[in-house]
C-alpha cells in the first residue's frame, strides 16, 4: 500500500488536491470567525477571545469545534473519493490490480482520506481553540471525531467504487452528517464502537464493488 500512498500524495501535491483538502476546514471554520471578529472590532467590541455576540468564548469554541469536525469528516470523504477517481473512471486502476489486490487500492484511498481529514481537523481545531481561548479537545472528543472521519473516508472510497460521478458526494455528505450528529450529540463508547464497525464494513465492501465495476 506504500506505493499507492506515495502515488496518491505525489499526485495530490502536484494537482493541489491535498492543499485544498487540508485547508478546507481551516478556511471554512476560521473565515466566518474572523469576519465576525472584524465586524466586532469595527463596532468597538472586544474581539479576543473570539465569541459569537450572544455566546461565551467557550460556547463559541464548542460550536466551531463541531463545525470543524463535520467539515473534516466531509473532507476525508472527498479525499478518499477523489484521489483515485480519474483512474477508476478511465479503468487505469486495472494497472494497479495487476500488481496489487483491489483491497490495497480501496485501503489506500481510505487511508489517504482519513489522514487528510485528521490533519485538516488538527489544523482547524487548534486554530479554533486559539481564537476562542477555549481548551484543546478532550480524548473523548478526539475519539468521536476520529470515528466520524473514518466513516467519511470509508464512505468516500466505497462510493467512488460505485460511481466516479461527483454527484455521488451528496450521499457522502449525508452519511457524514448523520454519523456526526449521532456521535457528537451523545458520544458514548458503544455508539463509537458501532460507528467504527460500520466504517470497517464499508472498507470491506469497497474492494469487492471496485473489482466488479472495473471488470467490464
Amino acid at each position, binding site marked *: 500500500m506504500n506505493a499507492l500512498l506515495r502515488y496518491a500524495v505525489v*499526485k495530490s501535491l*502536484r*494537482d493541489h488536491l491535498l492543499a485544498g483538502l487540508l485547508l478546507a476546514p481551516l478556511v471554512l471554520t476560521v473565515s466566518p470567525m474572523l469576519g465576525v471578529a472584524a465586524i466586532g472590532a469595527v463596532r468597538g467590541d472586544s474581539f479576543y477571545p473570539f465569541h459569537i455576540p450572544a455566546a461565551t468564548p467557550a460556547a463559541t469554541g464548542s460550536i466551531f469545534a463541531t463545525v470543524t469536525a463535520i467539515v473534516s469528516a466531509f473532507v476525508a470523504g472527498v479525499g478518499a473519493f477523489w484521489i483515485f477517481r*480519474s483512474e477508476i473512471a478511465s479503468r*487505469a486502476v486495472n494497472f494497479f490490480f*495487476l500488481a496489487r489486490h483491489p483491497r490495497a487500492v480501496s485501503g489506500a484511498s481510505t487511508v489517504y482520506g482519513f489522514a487528510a481529514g485528521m490533519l485538516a481537523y488538527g489544523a482547524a481545531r487548534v486554530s479554533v481553540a486559539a481564537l476562542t481561548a477555549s481548551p484543546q479537545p478532550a480524548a473523548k472528543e478526539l475519539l468521536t471525531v476520529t470515528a466520524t472521519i473514518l466513516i467519511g473516508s470509508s464512505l468516500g472510497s466505497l462510493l467512488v467504487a460505485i460511481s466516479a460521478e461527483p454527484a455521488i458526494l451528496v450521499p457522502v455528505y449525508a452519511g457524514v452528517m448523520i454519523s456526526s450528529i449521532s456521535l457528537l450529540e451523545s458520544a458514548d463508547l458503544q455508539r463509537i464502537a458501532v460507528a467504527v464497525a460500520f466504517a470497517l464494513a464499508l472498507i470491506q465492501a469497497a474492494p469487492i464493488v471496485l473489482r466488479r465495476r472495473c*471488470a467490464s
Partner: protein
Amino acid sequence: MSERAIVAENLLKRYGSVTALRDTSFEVTRGTITGFIGRNGAGKTTTLKILSTLLRADDGMCTMLGYDVRNAPLEVRRRIGFLPDAFELPAVLTLHEYLDIFAELHGIARGDRAKRVATALQLTRTEDLEGRRLHALSRGEQQRIGLARALIHNPDILLLDEPAAGLDPHARVELKELLRLLRERGKTVFLSSHVLADLEEICDDLVVIKNGSIIFSGPVSGFRLQMRAQTRWRVVTVTGQLTIPPAFSGQVIAAGPNSIELEGDLSPLERARWISELVARGVSVCEMSPRQTSLEQEFAKAVEEEEEEIA
C-alpha cells in the same frame, strides 16, 4: 517445463444477452510472437482481459504458464505484462516516478528499482522522456510508456492490445524491433492488431477470432494453407495477344492488352509450356512473376467464407 505459455479452453463470456466469446480455445507456444486478429467486436479485447485476470470468463478454463487465471490470479499477474488498447496516464507524475511506483507495486526491492526502470526505459527508447511529466504526449509516446510499465517487472508473457494503433511508420518499426528482441530473450508475446502486414512480418503464429469463436490457430503458413492461399501470377508482354494457359483451373484477376494476372496453381512445367506456346504464337513475354496474397487478403477471405457459410 511445458512449451505452452497460454492455454485457453472453451471460454465463454456473455455481456447480458450478447455472447462475446463462445467455446474459444487456442494455445500459444512459449517464446513466440503470436498475432491475434479479428474484426472490431470479434472478442479480442475480452479474451485479452480474461487472460490478464481482469475479467472472469463465465465458463471454460485458461492457464498462463500453467497457472489457472481463475484460481491463481496472483501467480498469473506476476508473470504477465498487459498493455490495453486505451489507457490514461497521470499527467502530474514524471515518467521516472510513474515507473518507480509501479516497480514498487510489483514488489521490486528498492535497491533494484533504479536498474529496472533504466532497463524498461532503454528497451522502449523512452530515456529522453524520463524526467518529463506525463502530459501532452503523442500517441506513440504514450504507447511506449505503457509498454515500459508493462515490462517493469520483467514478465514472461506480454499481452498487448493494439500496440501499433496510432503509431507512425518509424515507431512501428521500433515496436517490431522491440518485440523481436523480447522474443530473443525468451518472452512470449501475444498481441492483437489490425495492422496485418506487421503481424505477418513478426509473428510465428496466428490466432484468428470471428464473432467470439476461433476460426484458426497455428503457424502463419498454416493459415495461408487453410485459406487455400494461391499464388498470383502476373505476365507482361511487349507484343502479341495473351491467352490463358490450357487447362488452367484458377481465376483471372485482371486482364489488360499487355498483361494478365491469374490466381491459381501453376507448376513449373505448366509455366514453361505456357511460355513456349505464347512464344510460338509470336508473343514476346517480358515478365512472369509470382505475387503472393497478403495476410490481409487471406483474413478478409476467411471472414467472407465464414459469413457465406452462416448465410
